[in-house]
């Protein structure tokens, strides 16, 4: 691991309780969900990571504690380093603080994660669905959201099938 990135990992371990790891040359730090704003701020202000290219989530479905991981990939345009942050989010309540205040670009990315994974971002200025229509039921990228092979709903039995149909909302 590069010395510079190592010092960032140490700083995050000390101030936010983050756990660093390395895979295929990429540095990842797992931070507690409550410390995510602080971790982003440390990386932006003290380590010159001025961009947030990726904000997405991963669903480890049957798991209840830490079911979701919210993934942040930060980039430094000056030093040309990537840095990954991850925070575990429980199934309920599925919520984490917004990093909109640190990186304004997180606004739409967080809306996308809310839309497709159903993770709420506390303090977000405009948390609406972005990809799916506003009245959509469920969150499609959750692993328990079905992809095809569903019973076909006709007009005469729409309600009947709708009751037992999985909507990925559990």
């Amino acid at each position, binding site marked *: 691991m590069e010395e510079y990135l190592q010092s960032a990992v140490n700083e995050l371990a000390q101030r936010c309780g983050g756990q660093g790891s390395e*895979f*295929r040359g*990429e540095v*990842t730090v797992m931070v507690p969900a409550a410390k995510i704003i602080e971790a982003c701020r440390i990386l932006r202000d003290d380590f010159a990571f*001025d*961009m*947030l*290219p*990726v904000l*997405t989530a*991963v*669903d480890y479905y049957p798991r209840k504690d830490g079911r979701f991981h919210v*993934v942040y*990939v930060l980039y430094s*345009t000056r030093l*040309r380093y*990537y840095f*990954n942050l991850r925070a575990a989010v429980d199934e309920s309540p599925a919520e984490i603080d917004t990093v909109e205040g640190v*990186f*304004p*670009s997180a*606004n*739409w*990315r967080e809306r*996308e994660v809310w839309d*497709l994974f159903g993770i709420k971002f506390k303090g977000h*200025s*405009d948390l*609406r*669905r*972005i*990809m*799916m*229509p*506003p*009245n959509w*039921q469920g969150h*499609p*990228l959750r692993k328990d*959201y079905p*992809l*095809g092979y569903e019973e076909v709903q006709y007009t005469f039995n*729409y*309600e009947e099938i*709708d009751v037992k149909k999985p909507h990925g909302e559990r």
Partner: protein
Amino acid sequence: MTTEIQEFTLDELKHLFSPAALTGETMVLNMGPQHPSTHGVLRLIVELDGEKVVNCVPDIGFLHTGIEKNMEAKTYQKAEVMTDRMDYLYTIGNNLVYSLAIEKLTGLQSPPRSDAIRVILSELSRIQSHLIWIGTSSLDLAAMSTFLYAMREREMILDIFELVSGQRMMTTYIRPGGLWRDVPAEFESAVRNVIDILPRRFDEYEALLTNNLLFKDRTVGIGKIDTPTCLAWNVTGPTLRATGLAHDQRKDNPYSGYEQYDFEIPTQTAGDIYARYLVRVAEMRESVKIIRQALDRLPYGPVSDNNRKYVPPPRSEIGVSMEALIHHFKLWTEGFTPPVGAVYSAVESPRGELGVYLESDSGPKPFRVHYRTPSVPLLQALPLMAKGHFVADLVGIIGSIDIVLGDADR
């Protein structure tokens, strides 16, 4: 429950507009999604004071096809076919970045010949994407003839894609570990023919536009954005380089051997539509330079990694080798199983940083694929560029940031 799609009401969006919109002092107008100037299915809710844009709220998702979800249900090889359908003007790059992510995850090595062909094709792809851009964005500003010329040149490049892969746009030619197969013998002369013609044609476009007073009136000083705003809003690509920061993945984090080629990253400092135009035209010329160098030193040899656990054997081997037959069967029925882990890899698309976040759970299907697409931040920053300009200029600004809605909505 109904199956009808509801829309956001103005009441739900009122925090995005000024109080004057609610009293009727300013007008809230809907633009798109079915509007030729929105380059696809982009909907803008525009707040107007007379003809001046006070605010605009982009509404995306009309082209959302759930590709990320669908990819989780297919094996790695089969999922790649869907990547073409996102950014349909940079299909080669979508394949490339997906293959690069798998190569990073599994440790596959793309041989030098494959790398060189990847570079040639992705630069050709960049040129054809910029050609569409120069045509459509000048059409938005009422310069009709450039569009017809640009489409003519784009056709020559699509013919090369058809020559190598049998497909004009959705090629799926770049595969994890290398290429689908080697290029045909006519490839080199066909590409040389195109890159000899192209620079002359770029001169023609420039003669039509660069010093055209009508074009400059519509572009200089319109849709300005500066570097810190770009970084905060994650705007990359020509829009960022037009503000003066030479951020380009091909130089910053070289992939596929871009470090071997001698080329410049064109930048401008004004940050307006005209600066973006100059950057893109200069980029097309640099792309031609890269293609020429890559053709001159195109090495001979294999075009894909020899690791049969990941790369299917060529047809000629299947007839003579039992192992090859078994590998072929296993790869196309079961797929390959990369180790557990997550990687991020990025390339420079004609619009900016195109990245893939790929996570594997050691199964034959990707556990999670996320495409970091450049069009999303560009659209997100559109209101910042459009505020205070006329509606007619808003059309020009949408054209100048060169969005692809398939790329934004996925």
